[in-house]
């Protein structure tokens, strides 16, 4: 009897380890960007040349005074192309100001400043202002990890949300796909309307 219980222990341990392994295999190995330390913070200071208007700038001060979105995009980024149509439709509603950072659009990344200008001329310009951040100066301050990426900002320029990946305007996003739900323009507009009702401030977490 004693020897049997002694043999049972290692077997139990091994079974438990296998259960852990099995569970581990189904975890998402990617770090969730939702808990970025940037959220809840005031937008960082930055100053960029306006991409389309020579001599003008796009800087931190532009973010004050209204709820806005800041979209990070590049011509070398295929999902930015798909997202562009969504942004055009969002801009057409006139519900929210959209600013943008044209990120790392340089030859070494497979883009260029001229390609970025041509992109907006050809596909339309959904942005109120676009900063030229070819050298990833502002991008490092905003802790951008990839394009596309979108920040939701409150009336004082505080970062309420960080949305990685392309926005979508699907009528009914798949509830099992948390990114599709989070990146849904309809849901973002709902949040923005609630923010406006609350003095344009970020909503408390969980709302």
């Amino acid at each position, binding site marked *: 009897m004693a020897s049997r219980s002694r043999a049972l222990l290692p077997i139990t341990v091994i079974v438990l380890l296998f259960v852990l392994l099995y569970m581990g295999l189904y975890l998402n190995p*990617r770090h969730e960007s939702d808990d*970025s*330390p*940037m959220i809840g913070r005031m937008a960082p200071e930055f100053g960029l040349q306006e991409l389309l208007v020579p001599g003008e700038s796009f800087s931190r001060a532009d973010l004050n005074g209204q709820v806005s979105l800041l979209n990070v995009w590049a011509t070398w980024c295929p999902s930015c192309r798909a997202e562009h149509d969504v942004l055009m439709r969002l801009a057409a509603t006139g519900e929210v100001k959209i600013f943008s950072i044209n990120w790392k659009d340089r030859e070494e*990344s497979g883009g260029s400043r001229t390609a970025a200008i041509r992109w907006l001329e050809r596909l339309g310009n959904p942005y109120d202002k676009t900063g030229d951040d070819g050298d*990833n100066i502002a991008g*490092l301050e905003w802790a951008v*990890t*990839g394009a596309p990426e979108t920040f939701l900002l409150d009336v004082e320029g505080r970062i309420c949300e960080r949305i990685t990946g392309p926005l979508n305007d699907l009528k009914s996003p798949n509830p099992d796909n948390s990114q599709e739900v989070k990146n849904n323009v309809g849901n973002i507009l709902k949040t923005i309307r609630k923010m406006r009702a609350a003095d344009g401030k970020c909503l408390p977490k969980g709302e």
Partner: protein
Amino acid sequence: MVSAIRTFSILFVMVFSPLSLGAPIDSLSFETQSEEDRFKRLIEEIRCVKCQNTSIAGSNADLARDHRIKVYEMIGQGKTDTEIREWFVVRYGDFVLYRPKVDSRTWLLWGLPLLLVPIGAVLLVLQIRRQRAAAIDEVEEESALSDEEQKKLDEALK
């Protein structure tokens, strides 16, 4: 012997050359050797936020290159290692460090091995003692005379 050395060196080259070929190369120059050593150590410690499973030293991602250059610039500006790590943590979170800081959330992670080693040592000593005691018992049992043997011995000695 010679052929063993040859085999070994061929194996050595085969095993390690893909690493050196794959490692990204930046042409950066340093004022002192210690600055270069610090640079190499720091870029091994900082995670590539784009690719996530390698350090910025081992990644060819565009953003990892920008981050290496940022580390290089900060070393040039005289920033300390702590300040450089902090620059990354403030932006990307603790996740960006391969060696997490010791704080209220990570003490268990760092402390558990220190705790487990003495526990293991005590268990090991106990186990050795028990086995030794058992072995001595066994030897005594075997060497002890049975009743019959004792009787024979007593008779012989009469």
